[in-house]
């Protein structure tokens, strides 16, 4: 993304600057050494010192790997019914047991995790793109600021969960008619979550852009005639990466929870299409006899969200230069 040439790296008491200005000719190798370290190495060092974040990141990557590679490693099919071995408890053949139709719950968890994580990431990307676009436009172009921020305030005043439910209800049939059931509902849920969750990102990005716009390097870029589009992509965007990354992690977490909540209320994916929220919902009627059927998907959602929240916490500390190196 950004490198050592980036203007923000030369601010204040940055080690690169002190080393370079201290003895330019005498310690050439030292200078090269420090120069090869971009600011992302400092971020990584700080991030590494946050134990919770490190464990969270490791756990999240493990789950992602399991979910992506799972269908190739685990032989059982998530949709294959086997009535003779239904409602089984935990065993070697079925580590999480089987459901009322004899489907392997472990396979369904893997399949559900793929959908849940895909929805989370896609919705996060959409809301980031929307939020960054609106935030940068509002922060950089003064004429758009008032209008776009009023628009953001309006969105913040909307009751989001009820509106999400209404949106899913209204557009479910038209979209499934065009794209088919699975793709249609995927598009619907991703865009519904994305459209209703960009506001915080937009506000944070706008605040940062407003401050950055007044800095000397932007003035310098403007004075040599750089067009606004170039200034934004070259100078502004790399410098607002850190708040965007923090909201990205939190965005995945809320998107996963929202998707599961929709599925739980029966307004998400169709019943035979496993996601973690859907599996939890399917398990509720069997709560008394087989509580573990609710337990596994709920635990998966909670642990993934918890690990992402820890990663976000660590990232926020790591990307804040005031905390770094403490």
């Amino acid at each position, binding site marked *: 993304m950004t490198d050592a040439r980036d203007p923000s790296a030369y601010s204040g008491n940055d080690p690169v600057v002190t080393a370079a200005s201290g003895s330019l000719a005498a310690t050439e190798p030292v200078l090269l050494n420090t120069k090869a370290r971009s600011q992302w190495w400092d971020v990584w060092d700080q991030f590494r010192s946050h134990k919770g974040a490190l464990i969270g990141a490791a756990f999240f990557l493990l789950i992602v790997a399991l979910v992506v590679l799972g269908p190739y490693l685990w032989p059982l099919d998530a949709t294959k019914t086997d009535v003779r071995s239904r409602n089984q408890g935990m065993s070697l053949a079925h580590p999480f047991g089987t459901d009322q139709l004899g489907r392997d719950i472990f396979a369904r968890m893997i399949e559900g995790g793929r959908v849940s994580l895909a929805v989370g990431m896609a919705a996060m990307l959409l809301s980031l793109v929307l939020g960054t676009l609106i935030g940068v436009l509002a922060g950089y172009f003064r004429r758009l600021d008032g209008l776009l921020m009023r628009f953001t305030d*309006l969105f913040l005043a909307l*009751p989001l969960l009820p509106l999400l439910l209404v949106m899913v209800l*209204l557009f479910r049939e038209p979209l499934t008619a065009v794209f088919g059931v699975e793709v249609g509902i995927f598009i619907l849920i991703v865009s519904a979550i994305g459209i209703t969750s960009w506001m915080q990102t937009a506000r944070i990005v706008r605040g940062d852009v407003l401050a950055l716009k007044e800095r000397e390097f932007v003035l310098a870029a403007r004075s040599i005639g750089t067009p606004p589009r170039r200034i934004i992509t070259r100078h502004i965007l790399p410098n607002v990466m850190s708040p965007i990354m923090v909201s990205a992690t939190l965005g995945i977490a809320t998107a996963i929870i929202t998707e599961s909540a929709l599925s739980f209320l029966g307004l998400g994916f169709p019943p035979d299409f496993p996601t973690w929220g859907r599996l939890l919902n399917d398990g509720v009627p069997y709560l008394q006899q087989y509580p573990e059927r609710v337990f596994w998907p709920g635990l998966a959602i909670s642990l993934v969200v918890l690990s992402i929240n820890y990663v976000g916490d660590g990232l926020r500390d790591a990307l804040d230069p005031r905390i770094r190196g403490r």
Partner: protein
Amino acid sequence: MLTFTIRRLLFAIPTLLFIALAIFLLLELAPGDPMANVPLTVPDEVKEQMRRALGLNEPAPIRFLLWIRQFFWIEPLNVFDHLFGTTFAEGELRIISWQNRAPVFIAIAERIPQTLWVVGTAYVVAIAIAIPVGIYSAYKQYSVFDQAGTFVTMVGFSVPPFFSGVLVIVIFAVQLQWFPSIYDTRHVVTDWDSFVIQVRQMFLPVMVLALQITSQLSRFMRASMLDNLNQDYVRTARAKGLRERAVVLVHVLRNSMIPVVTVIALGIPSIFGGAIITEQVFKVNGIGQLLITAIQANDLPMVQTLTFIFAVLIVVFNLIADVLYGILDPRIRYD
């Protein structure tokens, strides 16, 4: 301050109108037809009459204005009539639910007490827990208590209510059988024993909601206390020999409460939204559940009105939070 309040109030009106329009237009796109369930044997003229009675023949802008008039004028008039026994709203058409052909606001009035009881208690409980926890974990930053508190709030953030709710049902209602798993709305409190039953059936939903609210509030309280604990006035207070208790619980706490109070005000409407899931889990028939059933039954006037009530709550509490901030913090000058 007064001009600021008036300006905000005036700005709230176009905001609300715009939100109303957005909700109306969104529902306007709905494919559902309220007459879809009418049997085919009903003749067309009768169907036409029913359609007219529901106000479906008017063009969309007229229906929007009619709904706005009903929401802001006729329904408050009805409340007034109900309170003082007058008949101002006689003969005016109210917002009618398509589900049960009764005025929407009567259904809402039936449901609101349950929501207020459960959600309100949860909010009070959460505040009562979150503020001391936040104070103590900020005062002993990085202590064992603080670390444990941070972990619990992280868990409270991350565990969605549809899982924590189901989990406490399994543990406390199914396994231990301490509390009922389903909220009985018809239960009336008359004496001590029925009061105990009421408390027991409220315990689980309140606990689930309170865990969520507590984790948000206590983090906020802790951050706010930490901001203030390093300020110069705290050193001054200690230097002039005030006892530690007075420094923390009077000087620091009062200043730290300013942002927390506004966060509490801001959170109230979002709790109504969050309670949708908790109400569904524990079968509390409050407004959240009313909304879900209305959505499933394609009852557009009900959905429209309820969503708009949520929006009104958000706008009103935003306003209250802004004004409160200005009143509590004299450093803030809006005008």
